[in-house]
């Protein structure tokens, strides 16, 4: 044998020394060293593993070190004891235990539900590996106009091959539900279809359910389905290999080649993908993406392409490309390719609410645990007197809190998975659950509450003076200042949330009931004609013009129709910003809203003319230099007499055109109600391809729509008829507000419940402490009412103080928020009063359960005790 003394792994050795009984250590270490020396012939790592293996097998009760002190216990025995005391405490304090659990489960559950949503929102589109390389091409038709995502190659003849930093191109024609039909052998389905280049999967990483999808779109006979749509159309049977038919402005049959998953954190959402080269021509104007390589520099590239699109038709157009990863939060495009638009503000708000709920939960839990510990104060005193070490107390605290951790995380996890589908529906969010990471996060959130409560518990324990605890245990109950503060704090937060919710609801109510200034009932919008691209022949143009006149006549003749106009819909982001100025008086060009109208527009929407007249068929012609402005524009340009005033525009080309003002209409809300009514210029210049707004007679809406469908199919024999209702479009602008209102309301109610649990247990504790005092008071002639007011009063005082502090905070927060709205409801005094009433009522309900019980108790019982 080798005489060199081999050194066994140091850490294992130290571990052994730590846990092994001192008197046995020598022989055990000796045996292990000898064993290690015998392993000479093995590789070092093997010896280490063997050594560790044996060291760990010394972990058996009989060999473990005992705890120093008077009790002869080892770690295991201590654990047993701690478990036993924990169990006993829980059974003795059933109410506090279950309230603690309820509080923790509820709070963590809510927190996690919000957390899942936030996470989904922030990870939007990040699953595409090349997300940082994907850019979306956009255009501004003039410097003031909004960015519009369009194919620059098709519309502006930009040749992207000349740029070495562009690797690949992708065009996507989007056909919305209703615009494209998906036909299986026996049924027809509506779906959202993308017509895409074969490079699609080179850009986006939608994971396939099976197999590889790399080159799948190169075959023009293939079609790819989303998982959800595959389920909808084929149920549980395997769709791969099935033949389906597609019908929009083209028709063709395809074979299903793959099914891909569209995750909830994808802003791009489709039901099926059709290869673009399967047909020669798709009428829909596509969106366009470019995939860039490492030589790409955004600013440099945008400078290069900026003016490439300036031609006769769009002399002022500015081209640019924007990173896809910025689209979701920064560019709320109305383009159909993006089915979701992010709102960073609501993410912040949700982060705030989640934080508040977690805070309330943690406070509540600490509070409940602290009162539980206080009720055991005598036990602690006696244990200390006998000589229990500090460690044994820590052990007990940790074990009891671990119980909460395990039970609560499991419950939350189960509940979360049960509630998840309802949550997704109710909040109108799109999130997918992820089992493992959900569990880890739930564990984390619960763990936080638990760890903090361990520290608080330890702090509380370390403050206990043995002698005082035994002699006068009730004096400790008074020390619950922390508890009182925490409860008040909780109620402060709740008051803020209640006020916030009330203000938000009030504002939304105000918005949805405000008169828009126009009549949106029974108006159907139909897109009869597609945009004619520049290269159409004159013949084609003539045919379309004739068809246009025919369609218009047919609509006007119909007895169910009250009126038809090709003006713009008065909804958000329809008006186009263009530059205008008043001639003379030193006005400069500014960006102002412009919408396109025709003479029928005024009656169709029921606008009222203040001065002058609206366009009329007899006096005005399409395209003349005349405008009608709104009241706000009149004020803005300080116009006293419109008949002598002219305004000018330099939008079309660099030349300046002057316009006569022929009339002024009363202000109406042509934008989202959060906007102030801005100056508006209306010109008589609708294009053939603009939507038709058809007002149908009251009660004949469905007949009217049927008529329009027939007419549409007559004009577009291969087309698919779709329509929009103006009323619904106007409504839809406020869906976000409605959703936020719902979210606020539900989480406020939850916060209110959570803090009521806290207050309830606090009251329980407090009344117990004063049981004797109340007995004496009652003997001396105090009535139930006296006692009740005395007890409740002390709680309500702190609630009241917290409410008073909460008011100005909420006020500041809400006046900030209201600044987003041009027309805001003032934060009325009654909001504060009713929020106060709500908070106080909840508090009184929570408190009076206990106080009433104590107040009605026979004093003999409380005094005889002891």
């Amino acid at each position, binding site marked *: 044998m080798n005489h060199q003394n081999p050194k066994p792994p140091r850490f294992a050795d130290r571990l052994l020394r730590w846990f092994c009984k001192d008197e046995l250590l020598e022989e055990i*270490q*000796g045996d292990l060293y000898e064993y290690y020396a015998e392993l000479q012939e093995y590789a070092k790592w093997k010896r280490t593993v063997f050594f560790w293996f044996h060291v760990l097998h010394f972990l058996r009760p*009989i060999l473990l070190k005992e705890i120093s002190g008077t009790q002869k216990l080892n770690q295991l025995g201590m654990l047993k004891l701690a478990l036993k005391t924990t169990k006993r405490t829980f059974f003795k304090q059933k109410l506090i235990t279950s309230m603690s659990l309820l509080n923790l489960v509820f709070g963590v559950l809510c927190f996690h539900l919000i957390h899942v949503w936030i996470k989904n929102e922030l990870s939007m589109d990040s699953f595409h590996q090349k997300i940082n390389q994907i850019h979306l091409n956009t255009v501004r038709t003039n410097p003031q106009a909004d960015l519009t995502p369009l194919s620059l190659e098709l519309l502006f003849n930009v040749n992207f091959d000349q740029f070495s930093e562009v690797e690949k191109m992708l065009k996507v024609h989007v056909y919305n539900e209703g615009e494209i039909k998906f036909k299986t052998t026996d049924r027809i389905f509506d779906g959202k279809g993308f017509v895409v280049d074969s490079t699609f999967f080179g850009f986006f990483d939608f994971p396939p359910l099976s197999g590889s999808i790399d080159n799948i779109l190169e075959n023009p006979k293939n079609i790819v389905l989303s998982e959800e749509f595959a389920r909808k159309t084929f149920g549980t049977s395997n769709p791969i290999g099935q033949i389906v038919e597609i019908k929009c402005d083209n028709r063709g049959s395809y074979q299903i080649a793959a099914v891909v998953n569209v995750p909830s954190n994808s802003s791009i959402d489709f039901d099926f993908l059709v290869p673009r080269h399967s047909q020669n021509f798709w009428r829909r104007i596509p969106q366009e993406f470019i995939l860039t390589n490492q030589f790409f520099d955004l600013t440099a590239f945008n400078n290069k392409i900026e003016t490439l699109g300036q031609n006769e038709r769009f002399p002022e157009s500015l081209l640019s490309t924007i990173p896809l990863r910025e689209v979701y939060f920064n560019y709320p495009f109305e383009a159909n390719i993006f089915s979701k638009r992010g709102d960073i503000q609501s993410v912040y708000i949700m982060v705030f609410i989640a934080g508040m709920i977690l805070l309330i939960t943690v406070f509540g839990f600490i509070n409940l645990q602290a009162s539980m510990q206080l009720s055991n104060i005598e036990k602690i005193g006696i244990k200390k007197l006998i000589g229990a070490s500090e460690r044994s107390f820590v052990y007990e605290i940790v074990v009891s809190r671990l119980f909460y951790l395990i039970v609560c995380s499991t419950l939350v996890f189960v509940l979360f998975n049960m509630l998840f589908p309802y949550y997704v529906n109710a909040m109108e969010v799109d999130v997918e659950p992820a089992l493992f990471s959900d569990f880890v996060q739930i564990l984390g959130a619960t763990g936080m509450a638990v760890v903090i409560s361990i520290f608080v518990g330890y702090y509380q324990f370390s403050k206990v003076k043995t002698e005082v605890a035994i002699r006068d245990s009730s004096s400790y109950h008074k020390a619950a200042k922390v508890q009182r503060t925490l409860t008040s704090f909780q109620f402060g937060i709740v008051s803020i949330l209640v006020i916030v919710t009330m203000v938000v609801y009030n504002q939304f109510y105000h918005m949805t009931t405000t008169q828009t200034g126009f009549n949106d009932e029974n108006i159907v919008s139909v897109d009869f004609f597609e945009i004619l691209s520049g290269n159409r022949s004159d013949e084609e143009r003539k045919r379309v013009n004739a068809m246009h006149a025919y369609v218009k006549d047919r609509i006007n003749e119909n007895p169910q129709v009250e009126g038809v106009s090709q003006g713009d819909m008065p909804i958000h982001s329809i008006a186009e910003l263009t530059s205008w100025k008043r001639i003379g008086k030193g006005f400069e060009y500014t960006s102002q809203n412009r919408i396109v109208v025709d003479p029928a527009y005024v009656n169709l929407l029921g606008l009222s003319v203040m001065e002058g007249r609206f366009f009329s068929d007899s006096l005005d012609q399409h395209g003349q230099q005349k405008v009608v402005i709104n009241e706000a524009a009149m004020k803005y340009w300080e116009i006293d007499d419109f008949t002598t005033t002219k305004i000018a525009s330099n939008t079309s080309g660099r030349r300046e055109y002057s316009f006569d003002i022929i009339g002024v209409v009363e202000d109406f809300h042509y934008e989202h109600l959060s906007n102030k009514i801005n100056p508006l210029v209306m010109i008589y210049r609708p294009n053939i391809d603009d939507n038709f707004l058809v007002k149908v007679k009251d009660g004949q809406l469905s007949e009217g729509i049927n008529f329009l469908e027939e007419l549409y199919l007559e004009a577009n024999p291969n087309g698919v008829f779709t329509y929009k209702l103006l009323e619904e479009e106007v409504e839809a602008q406020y869906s976000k507000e409605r959703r936020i209102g719902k979210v606020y309301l539900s989480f406020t109610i939850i916060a209110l419940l959570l803090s009521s649990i806290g207050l309830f247990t606090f009251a329980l504790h407090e009344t117990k402490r004063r049981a004797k005092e109340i007995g004496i008071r009652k003997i001396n002639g105090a009535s139930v009412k006296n006692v009740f007011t005395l007890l409740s009063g002390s709680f309500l005082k702190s609630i009241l103080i917290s409410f008073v502090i909460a008011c100005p905070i909420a006020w500041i927060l809400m006046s900030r928020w209201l600044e987003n709205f041009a027309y805001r409801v003032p934060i009325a005094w009654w909001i504060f009063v009713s929020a106060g009433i709500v908070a106080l009522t909840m508090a009184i309900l929570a408190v009076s359960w206990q106080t009433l019980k104590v107040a009605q108790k026979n004093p003999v019982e409380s005094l005889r005790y002891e």
Partner: protein
Amino acid sequence: MGKDHIGELEELILLLIVMLKEEAYGLSIRKALKEHASRVVTIGAVHGTVNRLERKGFIESSLSGATELRGGRRKRIFTITASGKKALQKSKDVKVNLWQQIPELAIEKV
């Protein structure tokens, strides 16, 4: 469990302690177990068992024989006590008695 009852591993180890005499310490018992009884156990298991046996009063021990290989640490040499011998004897008797009461096994043996 009665105080004088011994388990199977305990019995084996007791027998080996008797057999090994002066050399009966933890590691050597483990080796002997492997050699004579084809039982591979961890060193910890051996120590656990001898400690239990000692607590029951079946063996005694003394420290001796530090070597360099052991990092200068002494061995604990175990010797069997009278009650240990009794327990072994009793355990054997029980088994022999049982064997003899089962005719099939008794015949097979012949």
